[in-house]
């Protein structure tokens, strides 16, 4: 694990706040869920937050990210508006997509969250296209494309990497490898689990970051992004090993299903990055951050509950731009 001394205290506090906030938001989603107030399938990132937070902390506000249906963490880590996210889960007019997206289609363009999709692999080429536009416009902004190990099964993953490499695009591919696609282990879908070698075969640098280590992730992404901004050609690929603690979709645990064991989960839970970074902070700073976050979350849920549902005429807006 990257040593704490390498990280300045302000950054540590920022990372902890972000990790803790995402964890607590999702725990709150899970707590509220049985009330049926959130009528939307939820894919929680609990246990996986370190990847999104580590990557996004290394990005600038005007950099952009693309993700999946499991993007609560990415959305929040990149600066997506919390109230608008909760309102979206509640299906309210004030949601980030006005109640027309739901949990699987979070978006916040002002903060660089460029959309997420329920169809696996689908935003990877979108991210590549965005990076093409940045390069064409001689921008120094960069793109991060998030996806799971499952997405690397798909042909479009290869096509996207191939084109990004061919055009040397300013994009960082981030594979959140949590070992499973729903209930199916990676090695039951891929003869070799070596995603990095497959990425590399398209002609781009690729590396694996073990241990769900937020500091290591942040450090490597920061170096990479700096290189890209300095004009070094992309793309870059990172496989970040991580682990989903909860069920694939829904608020609960799923060890009872039998497709994986608590033993497998244990080391990941012991290596929890929220706990780790919390432990690295002075206790009262930690308490202060936690208090602020709790208040913010409570306010966001209250905001969502108090928000109106979309009015019926909203069904018909946003279908077309030019009429």
């Amino acid at each position, binding site marked *: 694990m990257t040593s704490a001394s390498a990280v300045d205290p302000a950054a540590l506090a920022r990372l902890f706040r972000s990790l803790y906030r995402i964890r607590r938001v999702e725990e709150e989603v899970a707590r509220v869920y049985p009330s*049926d107030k959130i*009528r*939307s*399938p939820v894919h929680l990132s609990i246990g996986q937050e370190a990847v999104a937070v580590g990557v996004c902390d290394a990005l600038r506000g005007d950099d952009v990210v693309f993700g999946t249906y499991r993007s609560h963490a990415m959305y929040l880590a990149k600066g997506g508006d919390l109230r608008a996210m909760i309102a979206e889960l509640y*299906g*309210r007019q004030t*949601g980030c997509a006005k*109640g*027309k*997206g*739901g*949990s*699987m*289609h979070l978006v916040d363009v002002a903060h660089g969250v460029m959309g997420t*999709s*329920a*169809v*696996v*692999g689908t935003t990877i080429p979108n991210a590549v296209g965005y990076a093409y536009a940045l390069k064409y416009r001689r921008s120094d902004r960069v793109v991060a494309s998030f996806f799971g190990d*499952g*997405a690397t*099964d*798909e*042909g479009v993953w290869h096509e996207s990497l191939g084109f990004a490499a061919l055009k040397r695009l300013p994009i960082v591919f981030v594979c959140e490898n949590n070992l499973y*696609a*729903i*209930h*199916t282990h990676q090695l*039951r*879908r*891929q003869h070799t689990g070596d995603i990095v070698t497959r990425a590399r075969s398209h002609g781009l640098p690729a590396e694996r970051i073990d241990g769900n280590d937020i500091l290591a992730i942040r450090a490597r992404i920061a170096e990479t992004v700096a290189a890209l901004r300095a004009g070094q050609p992309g793309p870059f690929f990172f496989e970040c090993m991580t682990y989903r603690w909860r069920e694939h*979709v*829904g608020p609960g645990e799923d060890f009872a*299903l*039998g*497709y994986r064991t608590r033993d497998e989960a244990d080391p990941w839970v012991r290596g929890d990055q929220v706990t780790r970074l919390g432990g690295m902070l002075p206790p009262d700073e930690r308490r202060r951050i936690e208090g602020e976050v709790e208040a913010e979350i409570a306010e966001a849920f209250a905001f969502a509950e108090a928000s109106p*549902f*979309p*009015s*019926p005429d*909203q*069904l*018909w807006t946003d*279908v077309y731009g030019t009429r």
Partner: protein
Amino acid sequence: MAPAEATRTLAFVEAVREAQDLEMERDSSVILFGLDVDDPKAILGTTRGLVDKYGPERVFGTPLAEDAMTGAAVGMAYAGLRPIHVHIRMDFVLLAMNQLVNMAAKSRYMFGGQLSVPMVVRSMIGKSWGQGAQHSQSLYSYFMHVPGLKVVTPTTPYDAKGTLIAAIRDDDPVLYVEHRILHSQKGPVPEGSYTVPPGKARITAPGRHVTIVGVSYMQVEALRAHEYLREVDIDAEVIDPIWVSPLDTDTILDSARRTGHLLVVDNAWTTCGASSEIVARVVERLRPDERVRVRRMGFAETTCPPSPTLEDQFYPNGRTIAAAAYELVRGPGKPWMPVEREDVNAVSFRGPF
């Protein structure tokens, strides 16, 4: 094959499972695969127990590779197998269009009859609980459009079993379309094998004043409309096409001729959908002296919104169908909308996904 008598009640999910089980028992060329068919949730239970019974070579989960796995199904079929390929959402079939349209549909023809493609693609239409834009589409009109394919949209456990057995035995590629809300519906299902063969619709409620064709889940809502319409003394005939390709135009046309009014309610967008096809076929075949007033209903011409207030308007339902049928029969200018009734209730859905 004549069905045995139904001595039991089964859920749709169970009927699907049983059809596969019976066919796999009967014919070693039937194999079953798709993402997660062998996982603990067993595709909502429709594949429960099959991997244990038939082993992991005949029943297997796949990589996320819809295009190649569809192509593989075509190749297996060339080799004499009868693959069943399962997608938990019809929306994912968009990744498999090339193989389905360019290869599965065309192989028999473009290879001059030397090859055939006896495969079944099972896929599920989602609805409700905020599944939204990409987990709610009913793309069966895409497959109706292309010669060489067959398409079935069963709505009862009885038909779920009988059409699936027919589909598996069919020598052509069949798209077998399940609706998630129908999965929990229960109904009488005979034991043993029977088929509900392609090309025959069923009159599910006889009537005199208006013909309502309900496709896929909209069959349930059409039957609800039938109940509501009794309140205003309109006697609706309800038809379930069961197979939308080949489509039983005769049964629908005959009914529309009798009632003079045809309302087609599809579980899909209307534009270039099954509802436009049914309407067009009927009016095209009317004799010069015949008249039928027609109307289509389907998804709102928008993307599917997850928010409940919007989603309610996105779909037709028993009441809005009844209102439309009323207007068709009684003419515009005196609208009527039934009051929601407990005994004609909507099914609600809150997962699993």
